[in-house]
């Protein structure tokens, strides 16, 4: 295991965040200090400069910085806020497990249990292993900060067997905490699956709404660094291949982290250029041939997708049902596969509980990419639901508008009627005057 720090020469800092896009606060050609705020958004988290340098370009998606040669990581140039969640947001805390979900959204409410997720169960991700080799105390310190701030009574370290001795040796520091080592199981690191193994709790919806906070080691490390040393989240550990790990600035161009690509650039080897890069784990990761972007907070692992890991061609489902007993969520993958294009049936079969862990893939004798199918089906379902929600809103707004127009039309009719009544009064006056004039004349 080798953890090294990479000094970048250029940074491509992405502004896209979990559900929003940060708005740039710097301009091209401006010189920026290390730890200066570059962009922010009220719904997201601020973006800080990992290094000092000069802004090369600013677009809606990305800020590019030419890094000064002698610059280094520095604390964020902000005054820490008093309010806990606001301070968490200020430190740009996002979940480093792979989703980069903003922590100040996840840590709301009044949780009763903090679960420190040290399950790292998906090859080839090993940034938690790298973190424990360089700063084993830091995640625990982050857990302490979080538990104290939110008044959490019960803290559990869920560690896989390899990590258990490390935490065992640190337990005397936090005597009231529990160490939990679940039986190794594919997909055990997924929040819901882990909580089922821990408490037998069956969760519907986010764990944070039911009193649990499940935090990744990297996230807690970032929290400790922010709280104790003032470093906002501008760096992360990223594992490369099976053995290497880097402490890298967010925005570091991926080719800088992948030695093979640099060689390819030098030799202009076209074949190596078209290699497929996997960002994330073997199951949940995404593949791309576009490597020329900056490192982002959700990129926990980089590896080449070699032909040896390519799946065998899929055969038709033979309904052997071997996938059912291995599903950690107790679903019926063979049925989900059968009904993959029928959203109502999928919902009835509980596709919302599927964590796409790929346990079903691993036992399927027909090599059907089940997890990938379920991921697609869930995406389609999400899109359909958002369209339905919009249609429902439009329907309600249309009804309100029609009711308002009808009401206005009625009011107009009423006003006209009143106006005519007014005319009648005028007529009465005129009649009275005429009568009086007549009387005078006679």
């Amino acid at each position, binding site marked *: 295991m080798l953890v090294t720090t990479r000094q970048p020469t250029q940074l491509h800092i992405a502004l896209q965040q979990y559900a929003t896009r940060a708005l740039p606060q710097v301009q091209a050609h401006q010189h920026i200090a290390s730890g200066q705020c570059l962009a922010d958004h009220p719904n997201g988290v601020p973006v800080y400069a990992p290094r000092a340098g000069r802004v090369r370009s600013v677009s809606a998606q990305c800020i590019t910085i030419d890094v000064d040669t002698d610059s280094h990581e520095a604390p964020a140039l902000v005054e820490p806020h008093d309010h806990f969640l606001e301070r968490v947001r200020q430190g740009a805390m996002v979940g480093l497990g792979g989703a980069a979900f903003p922590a100040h959204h996840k840590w709301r409410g009044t949780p009763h249990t903090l679960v420190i997720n040290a399950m790292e169960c998906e090859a080839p991700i090993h940034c938690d292993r790298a973190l424990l080799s360089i700063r084993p105390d830091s995640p625990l310190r982050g857990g302490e900060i979080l538990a104290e701030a939110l008044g959490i009574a019960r803290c559990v370290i869920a560690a896989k067997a390899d990590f258990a001795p490390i935490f065992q040796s640190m337990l005397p520091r936090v005597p009231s905490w529990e160490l939990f080592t679940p039986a190794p199981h594919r997909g055990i690191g997924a929040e819901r699956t882990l909580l089922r193994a821990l408490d037998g709790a069956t969760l519907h919806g986010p764990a944070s709404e039911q009193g649990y906070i499940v935090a990744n080691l990297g996230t807690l490390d970032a929290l400790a660094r922010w709280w104790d040393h003032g470093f906002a989240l501008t760096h992360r550990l990223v594992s490369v291949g099976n053995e290497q790990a880097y402490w890298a600035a967010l925005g570091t161009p991926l080719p800088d982290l992948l030695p093979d690509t640099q060689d390819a650039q030098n030799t202009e080897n076209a074949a190596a250029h078209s290699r497929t890069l996997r960002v994330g784990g073997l199951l949940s990761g995404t593949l791309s041939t576009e490597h020329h972007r900056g490192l982002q907070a959700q990129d926990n692992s980089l590896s080449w997708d070699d032909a040896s890991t390519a799946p065998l061609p899929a055969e038709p489902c033979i309904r052997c049902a071997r996938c059912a007993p291995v599903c950690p969520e107790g679903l019926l993958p063979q049925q989900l596969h059968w009904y993959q294009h029928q959203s109502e049936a999928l919902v009835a079969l509980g596709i919302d509980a599927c964590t796409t862990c790929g346990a079903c893939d691993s036992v399927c004798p027909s090599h059907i990419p089940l997890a990938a199918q379920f991921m697609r089906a869930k995406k389609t379902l999400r899109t359909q639901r958002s369209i339905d929600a*919009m*249609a*429902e*809103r*439009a*329907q309600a*707004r*249309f*009804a*309100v*508008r*029609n009711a308002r127009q009808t009401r206005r039309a009625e009011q107009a009719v009423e006003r006209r009627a009143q106006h005519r009544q007014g005319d009648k009064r005028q007529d009465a006056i005129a009649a009275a005057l005429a009568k009086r004039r007549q009387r005078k004349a006679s």
Partner: protein
Amino acid sequence: MAAALALAALMAVAGTVLALLARRWPEDTQTLLARVDAALPQTQCAQCGFPGCRPYAEALVQGDAAVNLCPPGGEATVQVLAELLGVAAQPLAQCAPTEPMKALIIEADCIGCTLCILACPVDAIMGATKHMHTVLLDECTGCELCIAPCPVDCIELVPARLC
């Protein structure tokens, strides 16, 4: 034996009566109307010739309109409507749009005439007389009804995925 025969006879009679009732008794108009309305895409674009999705649904339930008049719903909606109303599906009368769009006001050109606000069927445009107007993108259904009334032609349609 006698009991079994009596039971069988009772079941036969009850079954026949229920089957006849189901055929004779039309589905509750209100429920059918709600289901037909729900099947429509709620863009309120009036391309069907009726002033909105609900009026079209009412006409459909009364049998005054064809099922193939809703371009934003596409062929899928035609199928659902035909099934709900028990009529034959027909091909769409107009081309279906390729992707969902949203209206965007070029704010520099807006003169604040409020005509688009009056035209919007879902109250998705904000603004006041002689003040700049803007589209609430979350609420816009891309019905295009605001485009024609604009006297300075400052409303454009953009694909929803770019908003």
